[in-house]
């Protein structure tokens, strides 16, 4: 039962990672790609770490996996925010429907 559950968790985590990677390639500008990476980082990481934790049961490894998840849980939003803030400071205009305003400085 545990194996089936960890199989399901790890496979969905991997699928989320690949979907995020595809989103990283297809989205038009930095801010939407930031969203794609945010989805994969938190979703795929938590599912895969949970799946691994199920495999290792109540042991020292699951505590380490919990620490890894805690670090990722706190650091990935911080890095996404600093990235978005840096891009905004650098006057990168968010993508808009009419392509004329792509890339030039915003007001």
């Amino acid at each position: 039962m545990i194996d089936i559950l960890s199989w399901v968790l790890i496979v969905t985590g991997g699928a989320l990672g690949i979907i995020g990677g595809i989103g990283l390639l297809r989205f038009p500008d930095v801010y939407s790609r930031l969203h794609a990476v945010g989805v994969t980082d938190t979703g795929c990481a938590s599912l895969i770490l949970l799946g691994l934790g199920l495999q290792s049961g109540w042991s020292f490894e699951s505590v380490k996996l919990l620490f890894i998840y805690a670090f990722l849980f706190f650091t990935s939003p911080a890095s996404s925010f600093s990235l978005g803030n840096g891009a905004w400071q650098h006057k990168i205009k968010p993508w808009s429907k009419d392509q004329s305003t792509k890339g030039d400085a915003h007001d």
Partner: protein
Amino acid sequence: MTLFVVAAVTILISMALAVVRAVASPTVFDRILAVNMFGTKSVLLVAVFAFLSGRPDVLDIALLYSLLNWLGVLAALRMVEREEFYSSEPDDD
């Protein structure tokens, strides 16, 4: 056993997608973003490898690398923000 191999393969595929984005990216922030994603995926890969090779003490490497990766992203952003792109000799123009 095959569970970890499947997990490793899926993580490698998403890392390859991140590398593709890192290479072909218009702005410098896409590159930092792709490197950030690559880093967190390598953390997961090390964690999966720890179970694959049956040596659980490898998890500490993943633990440390998740922090190092974040510091690297912050350092890169700091460098980009302060426009310090010259080489080691700052004063020769």
